[in-house]
């Protein structure tokens, strides 16, 4: 993950629920309560990069500043849906960088099951993406033009899957161009 990678930055900017374990003076603006103390036990949504720092760093006391929760995109409800049918879930609506978020969360939590479900989801959807990418036509501006029932599925792809779709579509297109060229000469 490169420092200047826009996707990495956007991944880290996704929100994670945090519960404060201590009173913090002056941080009330996080909870729409500017100028006041942030009370112990308040749940706020913080970007991943910030909440990670707060959760991992421990001050003078042994108590952690915040406790991390699982983001709603990785909630058990979503995991069950993914287990039932990976292809019918709209990942983009859950999180733009769904797999990036998943990988970052798995670094922080020891969740074997989420890891398994995510990998299985990625595998199953990848095969589906490849099929769509190969069948997609070429749009008027050189991009992919999908017709039919694939549109709904492709709209629900997260950023990583979109890159995958683009890669598969580009190589299929290059192949078609080469074969078409052969015909012209």
């Amino acid at each position: 993950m490169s420092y200047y990678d826009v996707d990495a930055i956007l991944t880290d900017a996704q929100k994670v629920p945090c519960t404060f374990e201590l009173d913090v003076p002056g941080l009330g603006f996080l909870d729409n309560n500017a100028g006041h103390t942030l009370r112990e036990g308040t749940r706020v949504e913080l970007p991943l990069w910030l909440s990670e720092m707060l959760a991992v760093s421990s001050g003078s006391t042994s108590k952690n500043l915040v406790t991390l929760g699982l983001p709603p995109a990785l909630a058990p409800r979503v995991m069950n849906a993914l287990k039932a049918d990976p292809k019918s879930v709209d990942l983009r609506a859950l999180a733009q960088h769904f797999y990036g978020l998943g990988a970052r969360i798995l670094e922080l939590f020891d969740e074997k099951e989420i890891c398994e479900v995510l990998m299985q989801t990625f595998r199953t959807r990848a095969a589906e993406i490849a099929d769509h990418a190969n069948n997609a036509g070429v749009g008027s501006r050189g991009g992919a033009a999908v017709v039919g029932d694939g549109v709904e599925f492709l709209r629900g792809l997260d950023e990583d899957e979109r890159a995958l779709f683009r890669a598969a579509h580009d190589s299929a297109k290059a192949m078609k161009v080469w074969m078409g060229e052969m015909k012209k000469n």
Partner: protein
Amino acid sequence: MALPLPPGLTPMEVAFFCEMEMITVVPRQRLESLELLGGPTPVLKPPQRANLPLWLALLLKRQRRANILPPPWLLPTSLERILRYETETSPNAFSPPPPHPYAVTARQAPTDTISPPFLPSSTDDAPPDCLPYHWLELGEILLEACSDDITDPGHVRTLLRDLREVRMAKMRASTKDFDAEGGGVNSLVGVGAMEVAEGRQFILGVMDGLRKLGASKEAARREQEAGGEGGDLSEDDEMEM
């Protein structure tokens, strides 16, 4: 990124490499031996058959100085047989590549590492039931340049398209069995150069995504193994290389 091209070869580059393949021609005019970088070409005496690099054969064909003999695997009957093998006999694996002409034994020999295009696989004595490394591009180029030398070119073209579809579908489906420990495309034996070039981007993307997702699991597994036995780990690393 300096070069706007993705990693790997473009179809045009693969086709360029394919032009080094040896192919059999029937000359229609005499031609003395040519001193090429890769060695002298045989003297062309009609109607004796001779093996030439594809690019030279195409040149002579274009000048009507030679006819190209299509390789035995490019006949409709052979292609039909291979297609039947791909769809019915082994619907999950790729059809095997042609056997290595120099038997690879336990004793190492300098011929062990020779690979196409330095192994003739498309001359008129090539095995008829195996698709060589450059099958797709060679077939397309020959259909383009010398469809009059090929028996039933329309049917051959359809068969090549069918084979390509079947094999690409296999390649795409194989991503379903990937896992972080390097499983998945369990065998790329028999896959052609053009298919590798076409599938590379997608398969790399899938493997990279799975590696990222499985990174934490992998780290945990390594820690566990390091705690157990040191020797195992290094051996495992070598295997993954």
